């Protein structure tokens, strides 16, 4: 099973967990990405996530399907937040269940690695003295 969501509302760990939980699976791995209060020595006050929604959902689905197949996972859930977020807010939750815990760890790590590389979502960080699009310039 694959569940993909882009949402401008708070993400719930319990809800993501519930989507992958299954009586046949003993091991569930979750990755939770939160907003840090600093980046490269600068103090972040809040930030904004923008997405190219239809393409982001397609890419998220492709990445989840690929991890599910390659690691023989039972279920993969991928929830990403968009809009304005503040420090400590959850930006992304990846939940993976599997019969074998090694596969669950490897699959979950692969999903977050590929998400950060390919999914068209852009983060603008607001500092005390300005703002910038993360990763855009050298």
């Amino acid at each position, binding site marked *: 099973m694959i569940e993909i969501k882009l949402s401008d509302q708070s993400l719930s760990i319990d809800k993501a967990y519930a989507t992958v939980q299954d009586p046949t699976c003993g091991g569930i791995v979750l990755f939770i990405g939160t907003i840090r209060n600093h980046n490269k020595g600068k103090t972040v006050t809040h930030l904004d996530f923008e*997405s190219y929604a*239809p393409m*982001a959902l397609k890419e998220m689905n492709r990445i989840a399907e690929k991890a599910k197949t390659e690691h023989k996972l039972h279920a993969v859930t991928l929830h990403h937040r968009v809009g304005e977020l503040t420090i400590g807010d959850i930006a992304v939750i990846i939940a993976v269940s599997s019969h074998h815990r090694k596969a669950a760890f490897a699959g979950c790590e692969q999903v977050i690695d590929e998400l*950060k590389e390919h999914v068209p979502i852009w983060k603008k960080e607001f500092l005390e003295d300005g703002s910038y699009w993360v990763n855009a310039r050298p």
Partner: protein
Amino acid sequence: METITLLCFGIARDITGAATVSLHLRPRPTVTDLRQKLIEEYPAFGELVSFAIARNEEYASEEEIVENGDVLAIIPPVSGG
């Protein structure tokens, strides 16, 4: 010549100043043609780490040919997660 419209996100929207940008090109250009025209008209795109072009909501390769009716988008370096 033909008018080709691309969606702009993130820093691409800041550079063009709008949610879409229109380029005038010969019919059926390649993705490379689009990229070059874009940098010609907005040199700031040349200052980015990189940018990709999406065609019909998928990453396009450089040699792909843009057809009439394709949905195109400029994809600056992503930073989700």
